[in-house]
């Protein structure tokens, strides 16, 4: 299975990973939003407090949307490979260096801010959950009833698309398996999917939002690590592009 790149399979792989990113970006619309008032009323009753006007809503969580921080790198990487088919080699080299440099810096900043937001939210969640009973009721109303079923459906769809991406990428050209960076990135993405699914099932529903937030923080950290790797990797290409430009 050597030889030329099989473009149809490669295009399908790009579409699959593109869909992964779109589903993750739109996951806040797919997960949560349901009414949790009945479950909230039950828990409030157990806490021995009265809050007649309290109403609860299922939260969308941060774990699934934060997967996009990893998968956008994967999408960028395969798009860059696709660009090599369309652009001349010299231009492609320069574009790759500059866009990777800028993109990795943007990703570091975005992932840091998103990680910080998730961390602050985690502290607030824990503070509220343990401040019985007044804080606990508010925690339950905002974050207490994570829709595990919705999340499992979205995660299963994402896993299917990621596996399809892997299969079609290898069908497009087996040499992609020799690209260790790409293989590691794909494995990171798959493992992150498993981590968030595992964490959602690990604890009772009222605590799922907390572990989901922890997963989001882990994904932000992983994205920063990958962005730093990309940043370092782009420097030689940028230096080369600058040298070529200066000598011209």
């Amino acid at each position, binding site marked *: 299975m050597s030889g030329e790149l099989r473009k149809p399979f490669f295009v399908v792989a790009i579409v699959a990973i593109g869909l992964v990113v779109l589903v993750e970006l739109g996951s806040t619309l797919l997960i949560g939003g349901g009414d949790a008032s009945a479950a909230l009323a039950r828990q409030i009753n157990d806490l021995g407090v009265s809050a007649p006007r309290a109403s609860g809503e299922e939260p969308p969580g941060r774990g699934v949307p934060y997967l996009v921080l990893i998968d956008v790198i994967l999408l960028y990487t395969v798009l860059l490979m696709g660009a090599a088919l369309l652009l001349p080699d010299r231009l492609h080299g320069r574009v790759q260096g500059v866009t990777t440099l800028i993109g990795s810096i943007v990703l570091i900043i975005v992932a840091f801010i998103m990680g910080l937001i998730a961390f602050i939210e985690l502290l607030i969640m824990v503070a509220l959950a343990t401040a019985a009973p007044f804080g606990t009721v508010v925690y339950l109303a*905002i974050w207490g009833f994570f829709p595990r079923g919705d999340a499992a459906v979205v995660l299963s769809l994402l896993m299917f698309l990621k596996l399809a991406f892997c299969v079609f990428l290898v069908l497009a050209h087996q040499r992609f398996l020799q690209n260790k960076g790409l293989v590691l990135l794909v494995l990171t993405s798959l493992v992150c999917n498993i981590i968030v699914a595992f964490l959602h099932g690990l604890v009772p529903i009222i605590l799922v939002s907390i572990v989901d937030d922890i997963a989001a923080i882990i994904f932000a950290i992983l994205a920063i690590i990958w962005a730093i790797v990309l940043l370092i990797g782009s420097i030689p290409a940028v230096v080369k592009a600058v040298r070529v430009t200066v000598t011209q």
Partner: protein
Amino acid sequence: MDNKQKVLIAVLVAVVALFVVAIAVRGGSGGEGDASTVSSDRDGLLARLGGDPAAVRPEEIGGDCGRQGPQVVVNGSCDLQVGPSEQRMRVVRLRTAADIDVTAPAPEDADFEIEKELAAGDEVAVAVDSGGASIELDCGFNQQCTLTLLGSET
């Protein structure tokens, strides 16, 4: 089929198996859970994860209740006013020496009030966001009762 393809298939099968196990684990995770157990576990994993939330400082607390150091004296009923702060989440911890009703607005823009009937010796943590709050204390008509602001005894 060469070795690389075999390894790839093995890895993908392992990933699918792990994912299925991860999805299946939720069956044994204890269902909805019990909020009273979670909230009372102040020495547990949650408390260690987030640490104790910041206590409201005594100077941030005003209102029309009588104050003698950490003691809050309620004649019939009164309001403890917690001022605004840069901290997004704080708690007022109170211990009561008599039966009393405590009512406070839910923080974080939640549009409802929470009421708790406390018996003598009970402790309560009232969560207050950065905007402050008015905590209503009611120990009954013509009754006097005393609460202690915990974390400010010194």
